[in-house]
């Protein structure tokens, strides 16, 4: 096992927001504090039926023309602070796990070639570019559920290399019958509601819509990312190294960067049993005084967008001085560090935000604030 190390490159978050099935980042944070669940049982294949599974889609799950994510993304991205995004010194980074892949399923079902105009990553990003009026300086990243973290690290490196003045990072993933069907066939998306970190017999996840943006720069900002770690244990496509060594490598990297700060942890916590247990145990050992929360029991897993969506929610929660607990979980939990109830942010100096992905990928960063 090669030890992971954190990149100690400090960047400021000039602006950030997210949209989930509970609204924008501020509305989502407030709803999570109230323990509201965005997930509700819906047929896995939308109008084509199938087993009821927990989904948190904004509107109807079904594919349409144009795909339902496009007007939602257009409306949300209109809130990005105006600039010549996509020009030489103002690059845009777009990250997603699934882009518009649901349109490919729709094409197979309907045989309507117009679906293909939205189905590939290239087509989806081209639509976003034209919708938002971005220039050519757009880079795309995709690596399953740590996708947003890759974009964040790339943006940081661009800023520190002097190759950009500000960077716009956009991340999105909208649930489609195609994606829901894939997770359902793995049996981790099933009839149960997710209860992240709960010690129970059967694990289950939910899936939700998510889109977020952040404007990043080296200038002073109230919220900053001071360290980032990425690590891939390369153990197996769908399972983690059974000792939790992959989680531990990532935790050790950010522990060094945290120093003496008092932290809370927004974990990945999808609701699967084995990964949830490993994550809770490893972070509990590395940070025994840090409360661990997951919000995917309400929002569902927003896949490649989760890293940025949950960053925007964390900032909104910090601004409100109340951090939501692990919504959807009632205990008993894998560790006693799992926080079920909301808590005051003023007790802490920083937060660690983590994500994990298929293939044994682990990502974490340290969020600090004034």
């Amino acid at each position, binding site marked *: 096992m090669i030890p992971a190390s954190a990149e100690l490159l400090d960047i400021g978050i000039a602006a950030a927001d997210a949209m989930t099935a509970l609204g924008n980042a501020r509305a989502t944070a407030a709803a999570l504090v109230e323990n509201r669940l965005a997930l509700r049982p819906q047929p896995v294949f939308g109008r084509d039926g199938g087993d009821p599974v927990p989904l948190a889609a904004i509107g109807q799950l079904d594919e349409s023309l144009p795909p339902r994510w496009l007007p939602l993304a257009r409306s949300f991205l209109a809130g990005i602070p105006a600039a010549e995004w996509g020009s030489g010194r103002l690059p845009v980074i777009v990250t997603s796990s699934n882009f518009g892949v649901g349109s490919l399923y729709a094409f197979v079902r309907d045989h309507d070639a117009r679906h293909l105009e939205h189905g590939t990553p290239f087509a989806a990003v081209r639509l976003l570019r034209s919708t938002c009026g971005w220039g050519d300086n757009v880079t795309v990243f995709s690596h399953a559920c740590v996708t947003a973290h890759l974009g964040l690290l790339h943006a940081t490196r661009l800023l520190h290399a002097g190759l950009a003045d500000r960077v716009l990072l956009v991340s999105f993933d909208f649930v489609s019958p195609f994606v829901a069907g894939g997770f359902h066939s*793995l*049996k*981790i998306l099933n009839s149960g509601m997710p209860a992240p970190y709960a010690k129970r017999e059967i*694990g289950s996840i939910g899936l939700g819509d998510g889109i977020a943006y952040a404007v990043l720069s080296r200038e002073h900002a109230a919220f900053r990312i001071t360290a980032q770690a990425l690590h891939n244990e390369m153990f197996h496509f769908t399972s983690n190294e059974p000792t939790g060594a992959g989680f531990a490598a990532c935790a050790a990297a950010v522990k060094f960067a945290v120093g003496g700060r008092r932290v809370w942890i927004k974990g990945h916590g999808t609701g699967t049993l084995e990964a949830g247990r490993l994550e809770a145990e490893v972070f509990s050992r590395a940070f025994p005084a840090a409360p661990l929360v997951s919000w995917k029991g309400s929002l569902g897993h927003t896949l490649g967008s989760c890293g940025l969506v949950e960053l925007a929610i964390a900032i909104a929660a910090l601004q409100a001085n109340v951090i939501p607990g692990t919504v959807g979980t009632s205990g008993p939990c894998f560790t006693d560090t799992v926080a079920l109830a909301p808590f005051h942010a003023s007790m802490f100096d920083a937060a660690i935000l983590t994500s994990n992905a298929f293939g044994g990928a682990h990502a974490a960063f340290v969020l600090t604030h004034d």
Partner: protein
Amino acid sequence: MSEPLRNRLKKLIVDTLRLDDVAPIDIPDDEPLFGSPRFGLDSIDALELVVRIEKEFGVKIGSSEESRRALASVATLAAYIESSRRANA
């Protein structure tokens, strides 16, 4: 537990996973299918098997934990199918 069902499952496992160097008769009823050096099946193999079993036997496996328990061995899989059929009868 019926011998024909277990034999049918062994053939299904060999066919589905394209185990070219394993004959159905070589799979003992109680040998672990996953985590054994002999078969070395993993979660992707499990996915393929579950899809095929659900289709062929009309049973529904509800979660990944249920799937892991059912696919522990040929004997547990046969018991699972028989019990699901009884429950749905």
